[in-house]
């Protein structure tokens, strides 16, 4: 437990110290939120709920910033490898599992902080939180997304030699995961050929879970969302742990 805390503490310290990274990863979600939100708010209304597009969009953008931050946090171990720091942890009498868990929880924590920042900023453009309990539910879903995708990033980083593959992963894995999720469009209005893809995208369940927490309604049963996401987090954590065990400094 101490070891996991030690690794977690380092991740969080590094994150809090790099102001440019915090602001940098806020940029894109904010851009989406402001331009899509204000741009489409007056011409789009979400069927069924009657709420404006901005209110619909916020959970998706929160999920987006959690997704990007956590994948990035996971892939960061490549940097530790290049800067030589990974050797310091790998030669210590601690298990790979502890290192991996500390790194995952650290990444998830930073991702949740990013998500909460977006949430707070959304309050200024008209978001209203339904209840404190709802906020906690949303936070739980953010944490699950964070854990899943940090572990996912670690799994990928364990197989990468350097940061060159990072763009590839962003363009062909992370952006599609975001685009196919119900973050930008309601699932019910998707064309029938696209709906299965959206339902197969684990992020969809995260977005819907956060949406349930923030607005009290969602298109997928929140219990199902929680179940799917917990299973996905466990699967990626296992994959990450397995691949990280084979990583060499």
């Amino acid at each position, binding site marked *: 437990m101490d070891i996991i805390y030690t690794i977690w503490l380092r991740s969080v310290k590094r994150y809090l110290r790099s102001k440019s990274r915090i602001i940098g990863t806020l940029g894109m979600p904010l851009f989406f939120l402001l331009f899509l939100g204000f741009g489409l708010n007056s011409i789009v209304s979400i069927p069924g709920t009657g709420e404006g597009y901005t209110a619909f969009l916020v959970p998706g953008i929160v999920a987006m910033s959690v997704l990007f931050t956590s994948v990035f946090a996971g892939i960061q171990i490549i940097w530790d490898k290049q800067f030589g*720091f990974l050797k310091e942890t790998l030669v210590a009498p601690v298990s790979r599992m502890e290192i991996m868990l500390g790194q995952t929880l650290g990444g998830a924590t930073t991702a949740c902080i990013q998500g909460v920042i977006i949430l707070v900023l959304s309050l200024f453009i008209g978001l209203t939180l339904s209840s404190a309990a709802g906020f906690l539910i949303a936070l739980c879903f953010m944490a699950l997304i964070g854990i899943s995708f940090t572990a996912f990033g670690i799994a990928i980083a364990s197989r990468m030699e350097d940061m060159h593959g990072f763009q590839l992963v962003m363009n062909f894995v992370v952006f599609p995961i975001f685009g196919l999720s119900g973050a930008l469009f309601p699932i019910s209005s998707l064309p029938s050929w696209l709906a299965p893809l959206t339902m197969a995208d684990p992020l969809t369940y995260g977005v819907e879970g956060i949406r349930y927490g923030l607005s009290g309604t969602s298109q997928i049963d929140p219990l199902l969302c929680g179940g799917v996401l917990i299973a996905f987090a466990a699967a990626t954590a296992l994959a990450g742990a397995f691949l990280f065990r084979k990583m060499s400094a």
Partner: protein
Amino acid sequence: MTAIYVENLTKMYGSFTAVDRISFEIPEGEIFGLLGPNGAGKTTAISMLATLLKPTSGAAMINGHSIAGGEDGVRRSIGIVFQDQSLDEELTAFENMDFHGRLYRIPNPLRQEKIAELLALVELDGRQHDLVKTFSGGMRRRLEIARGLLHRPKVLFLDEPTLGLDPQTRNHLWEYIERLNREAGITIILTTHYMEEADRLCDRVAIIDHGRIVALDAPGALKEAVGGDVITITSPDPAAVASAVTAAGALRAEQYDGTVRINLQHAERHIMEIVARLSGNGVPADSISIRKPTLEDVFLHFTGRSMRDETADERDRMRMYQRTARR
């Protein structure tokens, strides 16, 4: 008791053999040196012993634990200072130390005490709350050494510990390494390409070249093996010097880089004879010196090459630069 036992340890990269069937045994409490030029395989050997690299073949035991199968026991027994930087630059010096102390489960009042003591030793206590990325190469080096000593391992690996340090800091560290060894009984295995360092610190030295151990003994005994004293003659015509000196058949002379070296016992008794032969044959000589052999001579003796070429200092500076500027 044996602290380190190594048998036919080998590492191959494809068809290239970086470490070639090395074997040695280090008793507890010894300072053991691996001396060799760049690319000899020192770091590769250390990495295998520290469980960071899987050997291609061969076996090794550290403090009774096998490096293949007993990794956890090995890791609990060892400390290591890597040749290349392994600090977190986004953390302060203190935080790097604290991270290490926590990883090795040093409980808190003791952890703070040790960190303060070691940071003072390497004279970084004044900078302990500065980010490592603001440190010079030498300061980083000192911090890494302090960190490697924090958990008082039974076996300490030092991969080129004083590379790039100024002479004063180097002396400080040598003294501390000796004290650690003497007072805490820590077994130390260090790699170096500084002859002086090996000579000063090591109880025994293995000379390693192209992945192989070509000689292994106490520094004194190795120098003994060179054969007594070394007479060095510099001359504009080294070939003539060599033939004049060896004409009588009693002496053996090696030419190297504009100088002629003669190894022999009791050089002071033969010097007059050599001078007489040179002047008798009309061979010009700029200078003649007599000295006790150094490990440099030992290396030359066993490999037929000199270890320290004129670019060595340049290369060290390059490596320090790469170490700190690597992005």
